[in-house]
């Protein structure tokens, strides 16, 4: 991977980030909502609603013409200013600083678990292709992929929290982040988020393994007299890993902004997903914009990482 390629990729990423930013900026503002909405119901007799609305909109800087707001926003972004969150009354950057960790620990733990379990499941089932164990595992993978994670979360709460009382029904932010009790508290959320990932990765690894098992070089490896475990681990798996790495990387953003969102919602984890959901409902533009942009950057970052990882893992690309 030479420098000009990297530069090209970065430029491409920037264009896409700009596109996402612009799209969400205008999407948020063409709707009929205004941050002054929350005051509408309380505006009693004797008030000139439009005057108060105007004052409130000017307070949050949303009274300017759209293009002006747009350029102002870009300008402040370039100066590292993410804006002011008027539904939480704090700078968006502070909000993110406080809340990202809750999302991160959930996503990190789930991903690690899903990668370990998913890959093991994939190797296990591929090595036992068409056996009973494989069929059972395949069925459970399908189930894991198909189970709606919001329902899964609810069922876990119903069974393990409400009926059995093993866990709290909500996530307790009072726990120190690096403690066993915090890890324990994250068990149900992580299961909720990771189940679909484990099943998906498992299936993907399995099919990637099977595809590579039919490759001639695997037969070559066996013909050399290598033990089957070495054949699987070295020749099949290392090759099967290539597309898996890509899929996992590309999947990351989907997980963060799909599953993690919902998981935070169910368990009351005040992560970025939940914050942005609340922000949508409060017409808090800057928070939604920031989370969207972070999401886009994370996605683009993982795309880039996938690319680099691919290059690292696949000498055919590395040396071109």
């Amino acid at each position: 991977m030479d420098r000009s390629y990297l530069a090209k990729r970065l430029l491409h990423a920037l264009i896409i980030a700009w596109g996402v930013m612009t799209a969400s900026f205008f999407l948020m503002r063409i709707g009929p909502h205004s941050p002054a909405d929350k005051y509408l119901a309380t505006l009693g007799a004797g008030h000139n609603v439009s005057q108060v609305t105007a004052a409130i909109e000017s307070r949050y800087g949303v009274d300017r013409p759209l293009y002006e707001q747009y350029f102002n926003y870009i300008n402040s972004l370039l100066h590292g200013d993410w804006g002011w969150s008027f539904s939480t009354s704090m700078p968006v950057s502070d909000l993110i600083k406080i809340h990202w960790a809750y999302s991160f620990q959930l996503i990190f733990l789930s991903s690690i678990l899903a990668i370990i379990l998913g890959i093991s499941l994939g190797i296990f089932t591929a090595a036992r292709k068409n056996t009973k164990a494989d069929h059972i595992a395949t069925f459970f993978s399908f189930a894991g992929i198909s189970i709606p994670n919001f329902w899964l979360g609810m069922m876990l709460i119903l069974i393990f929290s409400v009926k059995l009382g093993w866990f709290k029904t909500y996530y307790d932010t009072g726990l120190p982040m690096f403690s066993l009790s915090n890890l324990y508290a994250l068990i149900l959320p992580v299961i909720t988020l990771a189940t679909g990932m484990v099943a998906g990765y498992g299936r993907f690894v399995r099919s990637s393994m099977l595809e590579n098992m039919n490759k001639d070089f695997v037969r070559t490896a066996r013909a050399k007299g290598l033990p089957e475990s070495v054949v699987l681990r070295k020749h099949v798996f290392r090759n099967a890993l290539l597309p898996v790495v890509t899929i996992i990387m590309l999947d990351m953003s989907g997980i963060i902004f799909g599953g993690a969102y919902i998981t935070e919602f169910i368990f009351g984890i005040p992560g970025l997903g939940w914050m942005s959901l609340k922000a949508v409902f409060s017409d808090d533009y800057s928070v939604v914009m920031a989370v969207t942009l972070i999401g886009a950057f994370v996605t683009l970052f993982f795309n880039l990482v996938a690319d680099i990882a691919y290059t690292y893992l696949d000498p055919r690309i590395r040396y071109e």
Partner: protein
Amino acid sequence: MKLAAYYLERLKGNKTAIIGLAFIIFLVLTALIGPFFTVSPTQVNFSEKNLPPIGFSSEQSEYSAKVGGLVMTNMHGTWKHPLGTDGMGRDLLSQLISGARVSLLVGLLATGLAIVIGAIIGVSSAYFGGIADSILMRFTDIMITFPFLLLLILIVYMFGSSLALIILSIGLTGWTGTARLVRSETLSLRTRDFVIASKALGASDLRIIFYHLLPNTISSIIVLATLSIPGAILAEAALSFIGLGDPQVASWGNILNAGQNDLQAAWWIAVEPGIMLFFTVISFNFLGEGLRDAFDPKGDYN
């Protein structure tokens, strides 16, 4: 038609795909004729609140005029409401049937829309190439990069929670996969002899696109569509679950959303629609995978 019969024959060999197909057919039939046999899903009956399903019993608080306060009653499931009732005494069976209609409608229409948009964008991008391709693909990239659920939530929140809008927004945001697939398939077809031949014969771009390029990608599109339907169904359910569903319809997500607050008093409200969702989604996944295998020319082995 012969080809269809051939693929059907191949599909028959796949047990899980057939199970999936059977459940989908059952669901469609239920959604179509079920409402004629059940009570209205909005019919409330406050004296039959929170009835458990058949075979279960549950302790419920009720106001008793005699006592002038609350009394605990042990409620048993009745055949009148085989799947129980919700907190307003509405029949859950009929709500679930109504939910099946909603889910199938969303799944089919939203996916259909996404496929049409995706196919048009994908095929034009590949066929015209050059600048058109770059612009369309950058646009696709932007759409892919946009956090999908957040985008959906934004649109639905902004413009109102009606079923039509939900379907439209799922369709409008879900086409990127199709576009990429159709584009890559078309790219590989574009240089094939028959396309070049018809170009040489003076066929118009549209004709080439509709008569030569699209039909040749149809099997991949069918597989993708089948596998996308659960995504659309889940997207609607997720939206409803977080409170952005169309409040006028009893969709599974809406019932789940309501059930979430009743987990202690009436667990079945949250359990039942989830089971339906799960079976529906897994059926489409089974069928989709089966179709993929059936269409796969390498799939003869085993």
